[in-house]
């Protein structure tokens, strides 16, 4: 007779205990980058809402940004690295194929032997990782999960590219997810559409570069208008579904924190979602630029720091980007 297997179970609920973040130290204005793309401050503001973007120095990498954001989040949660038993880093700009950034980060934080792995879901990566963290906690697989969205996008820009490079910034945001007595993370509505894999892309694969070194360093490109149409009009229903599955309405929402891709996408989504004026809308993109996986936690941190929202308020967050991939959930703010 075989033994009956025991499966782990966890607490009924999870929540975000703290959010921290760090932006690249350098403030890069539109005038600083307009020359090589034959553009202007006015054009960039009108098209994107971006006034400045934050970029890290040459001596700072994704791990450095991750560590700074993680330490901020841990301090706000009143936890030590040793209290973390799982680390998830979402990034598309870490230079090592292996090992994962998360394992190295865990060691830096004193979190070893925490489970550690990276997520590759571009600008949706933070929301993907929050979904993972929520599941790990409620399944009893981890007690405190560190989620980091970290990008040094400036390592993959082409100063002459008019499609995406001028939008991009560097930074990292981190959240600690742990057990809760009350519901703190709503159901995640997520998905992908690999049929649009070319909409946001790397110019060429590393293997192409190996075959033909004259191709040079790969950088990012996007089909801007197509991505705008997809994001502005197809992501609003995803966000609406996240509210419905969480059992809340726009009137219950304190903050709307979409991925900070373009101010005009944000404005169109607000219109589509018919959010009331009472909802604080994250517009961190104006000063920080598009920091991919870092944008949602950084934008949330700003809303909290500026007193636009308070602990306990509900935030509707949605990430969307290269893949194409997307994920949305309603969370209780720490």
């Amino acid at each position, binding site marked *: 007779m075989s033994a009956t297997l025991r499966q782990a179970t966890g607490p009924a609920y999870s929540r975000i205990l703290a959010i921290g973040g760090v932006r690249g130290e350098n403030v890069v204005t539109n005038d600083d980058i307009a020359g090589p793309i034959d553009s202007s401050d006015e054009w960039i503001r*009108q*098209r994107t809402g971006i006034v400045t973007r934050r970029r890290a120095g040459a001596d700072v990498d994704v791990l450095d940004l991750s560590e700074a954001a993680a330490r901020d989040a841990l301090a706000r949660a009143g936890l030590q690295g040793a209290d973390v038993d799982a680390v998830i880093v979402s990034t598309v700009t870490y230079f090592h194929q292996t090992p994962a950034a998360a394992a190295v980060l865990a060691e830096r934080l004193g979190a070893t032997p925490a489970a550690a792995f990276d997520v590759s879901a571009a600008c949706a990566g933070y929301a993907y990782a929050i979904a993972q963290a929520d599941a790990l906690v409620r399944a009893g697989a981890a007690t405190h999960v560190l989620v980091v969205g970290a990008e040094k996008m400036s390592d993959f820009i082409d100063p002459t590219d008019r499609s995406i490079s001028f939008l991009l910034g560097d930074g990292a945001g981190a959240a600690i997810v742990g057990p809760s007595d009350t519901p703190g993370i709503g159901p995640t509505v997520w998905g992908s559409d690999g049929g649009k894999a070319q909409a946001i892309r790397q110019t060429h694969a590393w293997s192409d570069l190996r075959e033909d070194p004259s191709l040079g360093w790969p950088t990012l490109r996007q*089909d*801007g*208008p*197509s991505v*705008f*149409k997809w994001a*502005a*009009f197809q992501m609003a229903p995803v966000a609406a579904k996240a509210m419905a599955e969480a059992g809340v309405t726009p009137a219950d929402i304190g903050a709307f924190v979409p991925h900070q891709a*373009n101010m*005009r996408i944000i404005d*169109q989504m607000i219109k589509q979602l018919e959010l009331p004026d009472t909802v604080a809308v994250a517009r961190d993109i104006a000063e920080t630029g598009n920091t991919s996986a870092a944008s949602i936690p950084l934008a949330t941190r700003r809303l909290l720091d500026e007193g636009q929202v308070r602990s306990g308020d509900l935030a509707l967050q949605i990430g969307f980007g290269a893949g194409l991939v997307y994920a949305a959930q309603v969370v209780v703010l720490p």
Partner: protein
Amino acid sequence: MAYTEQEVLAGLAEIVAEETGLPTDAVALEKSFTDDLDIDSLSMMTIVTHAEDKFGVRIPDDEVKNLTTVGDAVSFITGAQA
């Protein structure tokens, strides 16, 4: 029931007016979206999306760059109706 060219033009003019603040009578067949109406690529995608919804047609992203004038869009939408 298919929309006539005149109905498509009238409906499109309303959509363009809503997006740009221009008066509907500024939206004439010979007008260029970019040169005459000052509509950028992102506003154009907003207009296209609303036109798809209003007229029940699909305007592929790759097709949008061929819609130079209001007349081009009216012709495409009229022809795309099943």
